[in-house]
């Protein structure tokens, strides 16, 4: 419960950055923070008390079945995909902001305002 709330607070810190920061790099970093919080939140949902990682070894399994409790493997599979997506969006945003810097010579979003409204 407390961990969920702290993780949600971390997410809101990221949202705060996206809403109020005025330079492109800080916005990219805020999106990164939001990504961390989301990933961590979903893995928090997957944890089981007293359980071990979902990888069978000869010590913890018998005939292909685990002998003790294991954590939920499905969210881990999802977050693996989600991290890759985050990597992609980071690369694209960095490429875009480099080009924007080249055009406008600044990272300040208040000066990058050619489009009206």
């Amino acid at each position, binding site marked *: 419960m407390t961990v969920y709330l702290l993780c949600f607070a971390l997410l809101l810190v990221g949202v705060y950055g996206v809403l109020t920061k005025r330079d492109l790099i800080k916005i990219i970093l805020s999106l990164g923070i939001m990504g961390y919080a989301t990933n961590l939140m979903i893995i928090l949902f997957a944890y089981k008390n007293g359980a071990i990682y979902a990888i069978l070894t000869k010590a913890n399994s018998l005939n292909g079945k685990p002998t003790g409790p294991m954590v939920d493997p499905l969210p881990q599979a999802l977050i693996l995909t989600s991290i890759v997506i985050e990597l992609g969006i980071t690369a694209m945003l960095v490429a875009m902001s480099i080009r924007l810097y080249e055009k406008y*010579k*600044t990272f300040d979003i208040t000066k990058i305002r050619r489009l009206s409204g």
Partner: protein
Amino acid sequence: MKQNEGMTLIVKTVTRVSVWLIFLYGIYIILHGHLTPGGGFAGGVVLALGFLNIMLAYGRKYVEGWLNIKLMKDIESSMATLFLALGILGMSFGGGLLANFLSKGELFRLLSSGTIPILNILIGTKVSMALFVVIYSLAVLHIVKGGEK
């Protein structure tokens, strides 16, 4: 420009040894993806970081000499195509798209679990090529230092 010549001799000598260890670790992670933590994506990033290590230590000019960026891009897209082709093969030999149609083998063996190691190798190669191409492109793009206005 200083950037193009790489770092000092000490770094270069250390890199010459360490980069092979990095590659070895990356390949190990990819091949043992179905047995231990790791897998295609993690191993691929390790390989890309190995390439990056060479580029940072020896400079961009050195990398341009022997790495073919066009070839890397082609390898990347052919890996993606092979992944899809494996999926279509699964459709014709197994029960559905991307079905695991090879023999499952014995648990805890390196050569087991059907198509999973093959997919890991494909993903690993693809990711390493893709990430290196991105870093290289970001580094090559030189931008006039601005701010005089």
